[in-house]
């Protein structure tokens, strides 16, 4: 029972990350490979605020979300100057830089040892310390996230982003501010990733840089590609499916030493196979 609850909790958190990546990569066409870094910043901020008893959970989440909005806008600004392929390289550098900071800034992040003993989340003065309460919180957050994504995509803003993805110049010629729309998409993606970080930290009560490194960013991209780019269903299916993979692997009798490597291998193969044979993913549109 506990296993299913933590699976649902973790998957809900990753759905928020999937939405974030989908907004940025799938919809706005900003090919970022550093979303895990933003996720990490959210996690560290909430951990810091809760561990030092600066604020309670909700204000801490708000601070993390606002900070990640600003961070993501800053990080994606180069994408508004350099085009597609070059931005991947820039974003790659940003991810490496973030990993270096997470690992070496021992005072703020606990360095490679991570931060243990992060307090559980609380809502309106009530501590959510059981797994059931945590799953409710995370599934609730996921539903809110999905609702927000759905509302955004059916509004003129969603249509504008789709048009921008097809032809920026034509959107500008239609009198629209392309830059502003892209910055807004990056901001929304930042808010999703930051909130996911806060939930992740309070759920696991321990974080370390390995959850927010390049592998994690690529896992997020794989989730979006496998689930399906640019759709709500794709952002939900991808995380639920890929997070089940380690559990499936644990049923097969392989030594634990190669299990992690096998998982990475399968993620890689899935990413390549989907890009080649089913670019629209299970429930999406072509990336």
């Amino acid at each position, binding site marked *: 029972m506990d296993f299913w609850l933590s699976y649902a909790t973790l998957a809900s958190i990753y759905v928020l990350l999937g939405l974030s990546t989908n907004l940025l990569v799938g919809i706005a066409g900003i090919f970022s490979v550093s979303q895990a870094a933003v996720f990490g910043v959210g996690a560290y901020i909430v951990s810091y605020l809760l561990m030092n008893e600066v604020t309670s959970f909700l204000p801490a989440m708000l601070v993390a979300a606002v900070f990640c909005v600003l961070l993501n806008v800053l990080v994606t600004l180069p994408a508004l100057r350099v085009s597609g392929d070059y931005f991947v390289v820039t974003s790659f550098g940003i991810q490496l830089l973030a990993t270096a900071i997470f690992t070496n800034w021992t005072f703020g992040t606990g360095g490679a040892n991570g931060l243990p003993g992060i307090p559980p989340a609380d809502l309106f003065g009530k501590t959510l310390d059981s797994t059931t309460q945590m799953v409710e919180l995370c599934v609730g957050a996921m539903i809110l996230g999905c609702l*927000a994504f759905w*509302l*955004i995509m*059916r*509004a*003129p*803003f*969603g*249509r*504008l982003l*789709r*048009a921008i993805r*097809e*032809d920026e*110049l*034509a*959107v*500008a*010629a*239609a*009198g*629209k*501010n392309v830059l502003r*729309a892209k910055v*807004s*998409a990056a*901001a*929304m993606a930042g808010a999703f990733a930051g909130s996911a970080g806060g939930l992740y930290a309070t759920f696991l009560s321990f974080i370390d840089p390995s959850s927010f490194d390049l592998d994690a960013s690529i896992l997020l991209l794989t989730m979006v590609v496998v689930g399906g780019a640019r759709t709500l269903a794709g952002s939900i299916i991808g995380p639920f499916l890929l997070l089940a993979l380690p559990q499936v692997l644990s049923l097969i009798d392989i030594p634990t030493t190669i299990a992690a490597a096998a998982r990475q291998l399968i993620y890689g193969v899935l990413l390549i196979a989907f890009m080649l044979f089913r670019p629209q993913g299970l429930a999406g*549109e072509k990336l």
Partner: protein
Amino acid sequence: MSDYLSATGLEVSFGGLRALQDCSFTVERGRITCLVGPNGAGKTTIFNVITGFLRPDAGTVSFQGTPLDGMKPQAIVAAGIARTFQNLRLFVDLTALDNVVVALPSQTGEEPLAAIFRPLHVARAQTRHREEAMQILQHVGLAARAGEFVRNLSYGEQKLLTVARGLATGAELLLLDEPASGLSASALDQIMDLLRRLQTEGKTLLVVEHNTRVVQQIADEVLFLHQGHLMARGTPEQIISDPALAEIYFGGVI
């Protein structure tokens, strides 16, 4: 003579190539002005300069007395000038209707926060925008194709849709880049009819066109451009009957 749109001393070079050289002209309100000239004469460059996609090295463009220098494309659209592209640049994965809706000015819900926190308000505004876009499609004769994806439309229908998208911006001056090229005879008649109707409704049109038959039928005035410079202006008859211009225009071909 009013100076509705006026360009003075435009200079544009691409490396060693001088695309526009001391190019000056005016466009009068309520008329259809055709911009003609051989390939490479600088017609599309003029469009790019007027609409803010290209900054001229020298010279200025004014619209209703206001200089457009340094204005961004979206500001120029807001001032009342919209354009189409020779290669259409439609949003092929959107429906015909959505192509038009995108171009309607300042919509509620173009901001993500409004979309999330005022969904009902946005939904109501959307219904209104769809009706508005539908009327524009009706106007250009595409109402029956509203729900169709652009890639399923014929080339002629796509051309009409680019005009519809320009109209949706609310601009009163439309710059149309070869609206009639590559069209069948019936599609040609349809678009010429549309351009004339737009004129009677008070729009001003500046049209790049190669087809002399089309120019003769729709133009009030013709600007003849050669090597980035305005070489002549006059009625279609004056321009077409001038042997020197015909030599430049057809010389390279025949």
